[in-house]
């Protein structure tokens, strides 16, 4: 698989980077709010990234990431540590994004241009890149939610089928089947675009 193990990668540079997630979770559960701030530092990016890929626009992604991180804080007393904190956070974000998908169907462009350092590219390359990003975003957003979730978690987040099954509360064969169908649909859409 493309990027297995990325799930357990830690963001560096925070003060609490000497300790693992489980330590921070325990302290946060005891009321040390700053320990939770460190968890947000480490994994806030994950929440936003998944929301962005699932929803297709920055505005909704920021809202959903924020909701998910606050929900995680509220539900932290009930988190028993049976899965890793990122896996648990993936569950919360995916569920909240799904709620939003079923409420609204409008998708805008990802437009990551302003956020990504791309010093070598000229204006023409930017425009072409924009079109590509728009096409992929639109194609992903057009997938039915179960296929979209499977595609985003596997092909964008690098998670294994087993990890996705855990996050979505599904089975490995079901995840595999959503991936197969999602890949076929996505391939046909992108082939037509080209």
């Amino acid at each position: 698989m493309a990027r297995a193990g990325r799930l357990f990668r830690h963001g560096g540079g925070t003060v609490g980077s000497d300790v693992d997630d489980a330590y921070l979770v325990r302290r946060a559960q005891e009321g040390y709010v700053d320990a939770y701030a460190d968890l947000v530092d480490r994994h806030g990016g994950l929440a936003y990234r998944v929301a962005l890929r699932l929803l297709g626009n920055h505005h909704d992604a920021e809202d959903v990431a924020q909701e998910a991180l606050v929900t995680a804080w509220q539900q932290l007393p009930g988190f028993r540590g049976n899965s890793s904190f990122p896996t648990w956070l993936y569950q919360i974000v995916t569920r909240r994004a799904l709620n939003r998908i079923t409420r609204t169907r409008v998708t805008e462009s990802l437009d990551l241009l302003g956020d990504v350092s791309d010093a070598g590219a000229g204006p023409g390359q930017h425009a072409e890149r924009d079109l590509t990003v728009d096409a992929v975003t639109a194609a992903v957003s057009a997938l039915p939610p179960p296929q979209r979730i499977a595609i985003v978690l596997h092909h964008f987040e690098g998670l294994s089928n087993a990890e996705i099954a855990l996050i979505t509360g599904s089975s490995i064969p079901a995840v595999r089947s959503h991936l197969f169908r999602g890949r076929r649909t996505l391939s046909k859409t992108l082939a037509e675009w080209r």
Partner: protein
Amino acid sequence: MSSPGQPIDDVNLLLSDANQHLACGADIDELLEQAADGYAGQFTSHQRDCVYCQAALREFGRVWEPVRSLAAERVAVPAALKGAVASQIRKLVADVRYTLQLNDGGAIRIAARVVARIAREAARDVPGVRVAFGRSSHSRMASLVERAALGHRHPNAAVGVLGRTAVVDLAIVAQYGDELDAVAREVQRRAVAELRRKVGLRDVTVNVTVDDVIT
């Protein structure tokens, strides 16, 4: 199954609903998975000699290239996200404040989390401390005193000290090999001194828990 003949290099033909296998018998979904995962160029022993598989993998790889390239991009997290989360959590956490002064002009208060933050920063500067977290809680006694004072405020006693007691808990992770007792005492000493200096809190209780050591 596709009929034998020319290898197909059109994605829509390859993926038409009737097609599950190539003419060579290879499973189309597995080839698509291989290409989508970025292994279109890594042939199995069968694929090394199979023009059907090679054509399909080449085409799937080409179609998936933009997806893989977007997936590899670093997504910048909005700068405001962490602050927005912290602000919402502050609303959820009981908004505890210490009253430092109660005078005719009003009350001067400081949030318990500011007190905790000052203590934590002091702890982090102590050699041998690798990680420190702080929490502070308003003592029940302090809130009773404040309520009583508000009800029976006397003009002459206006500029007073009230609730200048604070209880701070510090959880620290220390460097392995250091004298933990000495490290903890130094944390206590510095936190107390900082709270006295910066906030004017007089009776400060700083509980230090060394809950882990790291090498």
